[in-house]
């Protein structure tokens, strides 16, 4: 009874804190992007179709499986133990924790205006959008920068002197939990990003504090490594995004970086462990949310809002978007996998969906980069004045407080060309990954090719949707 009361009070307080007093959808910040013209949309869509069938033809004539690309090691354990790295590593860790603490502090005691406070631009623009663009290019450097992990490692190694918590916790991770913690936390996160009051500095700091404390508690309960792999949504997110990048960062049992090697871009994605069905659900929510983020800025979504808000209210209408879009994605993907099952008669739809799911990631990453390229370059400059005045108190520590945004940093034409090229490239990479994954599960090349036809249609649709979204005027 008491427990139920506590739950009700907590839920009401939580909703009160997070209820949007002023709507700043999708993080925040005004956008001035011009939509890509119809010709660019048509050329982009045409190229995705041409490349799809061109690659299918290439794969059809492929006689043997591809040779493995040997990843050259650029930094090994010995090099990483050398003097320069002994200085660089603590410096990186200290800087990461310093920025993390500054984000929380500025949120609690700084200005309540998101543009005058270091926390909101740092979280939504630099970390969420910026890292989301750089990680797929470079690799999963979040492994090194994760401040909660750094703090936890420091605590267990130097304060309580129980480094075993890095690997094992007080309890064994319950099998039933699977990856549901990351599904739940990602849905909450995307709700705050798209619907909730996530840009308010105070709300943001409260949420970061709660999340950090919860993460540290679960790391003690189930072990740091286990929690990072199954419960910490951002570690999992950057692990997937980072597998796209050219640097493969490997950490040892003590979660210390032991090796950095070079690899071909994108192909790391094909080497990710085949996930189970709950992970597929998480991944679809991730893909759906990335698309919804852009879709919700189009006039089409505005019309949906005009239709539904009078009856349901803004919060429920926008919350519906976060649920409905991934659900539609899931249904579509499931239908396609059933069709592949009927055509090939070799593997179950579940095996097909779990094997092919990561092949849609390049399209989502490409869309994320194309959609945010101008945003990160223009609105990202907001961080420059805030470096000098993080609390919004009128300081000018580094002399950048009066910096004005350079809105001409990227020309619309450059953004259009880049966006179309990036989306087409993302599509090509998706086709390649899908082929590699299909080769792993199907017995013959002819069956692999057959299986790819329905999936190709899905990928063309997904790329065309990405192009369509960036061809729509942004409704701020």
């Amino acid at each position, binding site marked *: 009874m008491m427990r139920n009361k506590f739950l009700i009070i907590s839920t009401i307080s939580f909703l009160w804190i997070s209820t949007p007093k002023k709507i700043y959808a999708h993080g925040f910040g*005004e956008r*001035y*992007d*011009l939509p890509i013209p119809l010709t660019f949309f048509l050329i982009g869509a045409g190229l995705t179709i041409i490349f799809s069938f061109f*690659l299918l033809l*290439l794969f059809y004539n*492929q006689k043997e499986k*591809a*040779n493995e*690309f040997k990843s050259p090691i650029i930094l090994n354990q010995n090099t990483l133990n050398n003097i320069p790295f002994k200085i660089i590593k603590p410096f990186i860790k200290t800087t990461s924790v310093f920025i993390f603490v500054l984000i929380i502090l500025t949120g609690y005691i700084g200005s309540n*205006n998101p*543009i*005058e406070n270091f926390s909101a631009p740092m979280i939504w623009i630099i970390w969420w959008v910026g890292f989301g663009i750089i990680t797929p290019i470079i690799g999963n450097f979040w492994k090194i920068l994760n401040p909660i992990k750094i703090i936890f490692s420091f605590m267990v190694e130097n304060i309580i002197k129980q480094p075993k918590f890095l690997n094992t916790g007080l309890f064994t991770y319950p099998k039933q939990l699977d990856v549901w913690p990351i599904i739940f936390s990602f849905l909450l996160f995307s709700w705050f990003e798209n619907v909730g009051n996530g840009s308010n500095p105070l709300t943001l700091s409260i949420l970061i504090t709660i999340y950090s404390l919860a993460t540290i508690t679960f790391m003690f309960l189930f072990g740091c490594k286990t929690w990072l792999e199954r419960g910490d949504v951002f570690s999992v997110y950057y692990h997937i995004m980072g597998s796209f990048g050219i640097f493969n960062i490997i950490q040892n049992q003590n979660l210390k970086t032991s090796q950095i090697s070079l690899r*071909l871009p994108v*192909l790391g994605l094909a080497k990710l462990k085949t996930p189970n069905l709950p992970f597929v659900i998480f991944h679809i929510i991730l893909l759906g949310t990335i698309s919804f983020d852009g879709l919700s800025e189009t006039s089409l979504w505005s019309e949906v809002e005009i239709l539904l808000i009078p009856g349901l209210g803004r919060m429920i209408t926008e919350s519906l978007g976060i649920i409905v879009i991934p659900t539609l994605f899931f249904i579509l993907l499931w239908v396609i996998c059933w069709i592949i099952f009927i055509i090939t008669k070799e593997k179950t739809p579940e095996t097909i969906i779990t094997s092919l799911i990561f092949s849609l990631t390049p399209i989502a990453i490409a869309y994320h980069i194309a959609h945010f390229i*101008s945003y990160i370059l223009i609105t990202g400059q907001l961080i420059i*004045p805030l470096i000098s005045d993080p609390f919004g108190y009128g300081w000018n520590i580094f002399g950048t407080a*009066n910096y*004005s945004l350079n*809105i*001409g940093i990227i*020309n*619309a*034409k450059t953004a259009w*060309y880049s966006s179309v*090229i990036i989306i087409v*490239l993302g599509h*090509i990479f998706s086709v*390649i990954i899908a082929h*590699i994954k299909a080769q792993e599960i199907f017995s013959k090349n002819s069956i692999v090719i057959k299986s790819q036809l329905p999936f190709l249609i899905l990928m063309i649709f997904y790329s065309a949707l990405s192009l369509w979204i960036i061809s729509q*005027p*942004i409704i*701020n």
Partner: protein
Amino acid sequence: MKIKIFKITSIIFLLTFLLYGCSSNSEKSTVKELNISFENMKLTPNIINIEEKNKLNLNVTSDIDGKLHIHGYNIEGKISKNKISKITINLNATGSFPIAFHVGSNHDEDDNHNTEKTPRKETIIGNLIVNPK
């Protein structure tokens, strides 16, 4: 095979980028004059479509005192009742920039604001769309 595909793809896109980079545009900038009116809280025309790298002189007639603020460019111009007010914009950035109206406040301020930090009451009345050449 995979590496070959990557090489082919990379070359195609590198060439596209190079072709785009070489196709420079050397048109001269011109000064464009445009008469707009702000009456009954409505801007006519409310969408101003223009090409970049030009200078735009807006001649604004209004039935109310206040300020027009062009977001992004952060240009603010005073407009006075029953007078023609001039706002000049060097169109050096492309994009779709909201045009806002602030009521009253005719005290002197810089025309070119550096920040949009202080939230003020404003009504979005139109858009300045600067297209690339």
